[in-house]
């Protein structure tokens, strides 16, 4: 089932004429015959959940937007895709930029935003050109500007390039950055829906979320909600990386089993180089890593599927999260300790420094993990790591603290013996990796192997 990527492989789909020929901008024509309230209602009915990572219902977020008389409102598109393992928004913007522009026009109309901003991570420098070209084409064809299609609605879309800071994916940090400041997250409340960019009511949505508004308006919220399973409605883009045969972007309706997603030729094609599956981080680096046995089946022994609910089945004790859809697969030769160390370094580098638990804690976690990885760790370090991550989680202004704590917690929770092996075998651990141990995938490898 493809809604967003339906025409992704059509030659020239990046350009207006081809995009329009394949049904592009129909949702704008339809939306302009509706009231803004009716559009919000369709999005609510669709059950669409924010595709950036948190999974908050989009329609509900939209309905919180304050509308004080005489105060302009803004829609801001969060294209600061920086969560390790995640590169789906990049794909959408690079290859089907008009889908985002179309979604932005409909959403801007629904929210009453006359100036809409796409905040894109600074490293995606060439994509700025692609988006600006698409916006210019849309304007030349009458979809943007003043009094669009005679509706009386004015709208401009601007692309704003960031400076290379993961934290700016957090919506209030993004707003600060858009105002030309350091990306320090704000204390909430007030929420952006009340006081956002330039203290005006603001909605910040992820690229994929805004692109999904196009099929929702085209087919209607109720029809969209029929796709998927339970509260995981519609389709979700997964960006797959790590040790699979076919890394890349996949659009799924969330009904597939994790096993099918990893091993079938339709999706990832199995583990690369004939190796075995060891572990997976299913939703971007912040969400808990799962060993193969808990990944393919839940703790209750049920088949785990690619939905928001099933991926989080078992809570953090035995489950994980859909997150941003950054699906990172580990083969049997990968070292969980080293991977966790790179993530700790990442979060330490990216902490904005406002809150001491995060600023100091991420640095300590990195240093301790580096010691363990390089054969200088102590057994007590593992408990110390556990203690630090607990003291970061929930004690910071923004979720970066949690995002830094969770991967360390999950690695210790599920792979403690690998950490202990590093400590007990400081020399051997420099020469070889721990291997598969007892994490083996229960479907493809017999338990006795």
């Amino acid at each position, binding site marked *: 089932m493809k809604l967003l990527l339906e025409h992704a492989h059509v030659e020239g789909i990046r350009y207006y004429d081809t995009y329009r020929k394949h049904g592009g901008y129909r949702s704008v024509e339809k939306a302009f015959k509706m009231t803004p309230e009716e559009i919000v209602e369709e999005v609510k009915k669709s059950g669409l959940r924010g595709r950036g990572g948190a999974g908050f219902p989009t329609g509900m977020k939209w309905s919180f937007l304050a509308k004080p008389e005489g105060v*302009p409102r803004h829609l801001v598109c969060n294209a600061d*895709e*920086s*969560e*390790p*393992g*995640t*590169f789906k928004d*990049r794909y959408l913007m690079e290859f089907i930029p008009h889908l985002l522009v179309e979604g932005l026009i409909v959403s801007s109309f629904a929210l009453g935003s006359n*100036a809409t901003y796409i905040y894109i*991570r*600074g*490293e*995606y*420098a*060439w994509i700025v050109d692609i988006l600006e070209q698409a916006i210019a084409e849309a304007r030349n064809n009458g979809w943007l500007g003043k009094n669009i299609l005679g509706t009386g609605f004015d709208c*401009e879309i*601007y692309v*704003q*390039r*960031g*400076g*290379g*800071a*993961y934290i700016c994916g957090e919506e209030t940090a993004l707003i600060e*950055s*858009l*105002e*030309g*400041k*350091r*990306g320090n997250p704000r204390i909430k409340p007030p929420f952006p829906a009340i006081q956002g960019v*330039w203290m005006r009511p603001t909605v910040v949505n992820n690229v994929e979320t805004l692109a999904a508004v196009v099929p929702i308006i085209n087919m209607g919220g109720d029809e969209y909600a029929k796709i998927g399973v339970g509260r995981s409605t519609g389709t979700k883009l997964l*960006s*797959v*990386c*790590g*040790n699979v045969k076919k*890394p*890349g*972007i996949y659009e799924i309706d969330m009904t597939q089993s994790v096993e099918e997603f990893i091993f079938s030729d339709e999706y990832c094609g199995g583990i690369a180089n004939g190796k075995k599956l060891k572990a997976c*981080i299913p939703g971007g*680096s912040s969400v808990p890593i799962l060993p193969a046995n808990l990944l393919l089946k839940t703790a209750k022994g049920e088949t785990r599927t690619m939905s928001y609910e099933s991926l989080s089945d078992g809570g953090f004790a035995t489950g994980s999260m859909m997150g941003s859809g*950054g699906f*990172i697969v*580990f083969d049997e030769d*990968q070292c969980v300790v*080293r*991977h966790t160390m*790179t*993530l700790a*370094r*990442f979060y330490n*580098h*990216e902490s*904005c420094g406002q809150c001491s638990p995060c600023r100091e804690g991420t640095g300590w976690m990195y240093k301790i993990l580096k010691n363990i990885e390089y054969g200088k760790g102590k057994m007590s370090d593992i408990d110390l790591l556990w203690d630090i991550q607990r003291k970061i989680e929930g004690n910071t202004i923004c979720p970066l603290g949690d995002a830094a704590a969770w991967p360390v917690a999950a690695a210790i929770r599920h792979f403690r013996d690998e950490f202990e092996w590093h400590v007990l075998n400081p020399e051997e651990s420099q020469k070889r990796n721990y291997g598969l141990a007892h994490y083996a995938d229960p479907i493809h490898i017999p338990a006795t192997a």
Partner: protein
Amino acid sequence: MKFSEEKLNKAKEIMTRYPEGKHKSALIPILHIAQEENDGWLDVPVMDYVAELLNIKPIEVYEVATFYTMFNMKPVGKYVFEVCRTGPCMLNGSDDIIEYIKQKLNIKEGETTPDGMFTLKPAECLGACGYAPMMQLGKHFREHLTKEKVDAIIEECRNGAKVY
């Protein structure tokens, strides 16, 4: 330091994208222009010029420039190899690529070759995880890196490749 007329017009156009009086929002995009115009880094006179352009205090520019990773506070080589080393790239051998570049160019991480041609700047996740290992070189990504590809990129740079 002053922007060329073309860059100055670009900067002024960017400033019009925001509501009246909110032109400070243009700071980060303008710092990108300034860095490109100043051999890839921002020194104090450049940041002061940007402050003047936006009619804000110099400290407002310094605090932003030092916060964001893409802005270099020290001189860099003509070509900066920003090689990603975060988890997903690590799983696909980015450590070997970084090691190879260090040997080949005889520099450590963060250093520039004596001829001022190359800087190796290890980077955190750049959003190319499925095409790992990778590096950013100027405006674009170089993906699926191998030692042979690194050799070819170095050769390309020595022949004067344009990367912006």
